[in-house]
């Protein structure tokens, strides 16, 4: 399994992602934002950071990078694409996923561990029973997910909501989303389940540097599917 990890100007979690993937025994290489060749990659990671400084709107400028046209085609062919944090913002700006990520409800940057409840979804990236909980860090200023009622209905009907913020015991309470996300949404996928966007950073909890390895599950399922 070979992952291409895209690097936009201002991306800052690409090395963490490559390190996490290599730690798990996968191939992982950097893809420059001006490249437009994804052949040789089995999956694409749009990592976190501040592409183009997050100026104007998070992800707004990065979506016009040459590599993004190719990522759109790559995804449309059914290949796996994951967008983490800023990568999720880029996926929504590129219309690969519905909705948008706006400023956190307390207006502050938030770096903390959150609890996530796995939903019943078509997502190919996560293979865990509904109700499984994970403790994964977030680190963002604009992680407050919003979408239109029509989009929300479509997400529900298509089983595209992958993760919701919850309490440590798995209970989904209105205050469980520190960023104020609509319906506690932390991660969604497209209708075919190959494109996954999430605000939390599973790649930060893979090699156990700070004690946890819970993030491994977020890359294992897609690799098993591939094998």
């Amino acid at each position, binding site marked *: 399994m070979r992952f291409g990890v895209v690097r936009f100007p201002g991306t800052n979690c690409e090395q963490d992602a490559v390190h996490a993937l290599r730690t798990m025994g996968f191939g992982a290489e950097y893809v420059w934002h001006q490249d437009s060749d994804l052949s040789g990659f089995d999956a694409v990671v749009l990592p976190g950071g501040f592409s*183009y*400084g997050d*100026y*104007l709107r998070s992800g707004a*400028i990065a979506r*016009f990078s040459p590599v993004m046209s190719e990522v759109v085609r790559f995804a449309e062919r059914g290949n796996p694409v994951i967008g983490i944090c800023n990568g999720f913002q880029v996926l929504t700006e590129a219309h690969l996923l519905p909705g948008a990520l706006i400023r956190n409800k307390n207006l502050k940057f938030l770096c903390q561990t959150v609890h996530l409840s796995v939903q019943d979804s078509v997502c190919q990236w996560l293979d865990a029973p509904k109700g499984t909980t994970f403790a994964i860090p977030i680190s963002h200023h604009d992680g407050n997910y919003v979408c239109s009622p029509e989009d929300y209905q479509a997400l529900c009907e298509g089983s595209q909501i992958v993760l919701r913020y919850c309490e440590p015991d798995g209970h989904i309470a209105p205050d469980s989303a520190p960023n104020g996300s609509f319906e506690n949404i932390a991660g969604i996928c497209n209708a075919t389940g190959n494109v996954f966007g999430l605000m939390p950073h599973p790649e930060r909890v893979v090699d156990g540097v700070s004690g946890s390895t819970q993030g491994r599950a977020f890359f294992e399922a897609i690799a098993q599917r591939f094998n």
Partner: protein
Amino acid sequence: MKNYKIVVTGKNGIFDPAGETSKNALRNLGYDGVESLRIGKYVELETQDDVTGAQVEEMCEKLLANPVIEDYRIEVVQP
């Protein structure tokens, strides 16, 4: 009721990284004619009749703009 439009922009000579980066992005998209781009804030304010223009100015000085780095323009919206 009185209505105001307030535009807050960076002071002349104050660096605007968001504007610069957006300008470069537009040029990279092929809009070669873009000369300059500055990003500011736009505020719509509605007040009761007894709030004076001087008080609106004070609101800008105190909160809506940061006079150390920003200028502001107040426009009264005619009903």
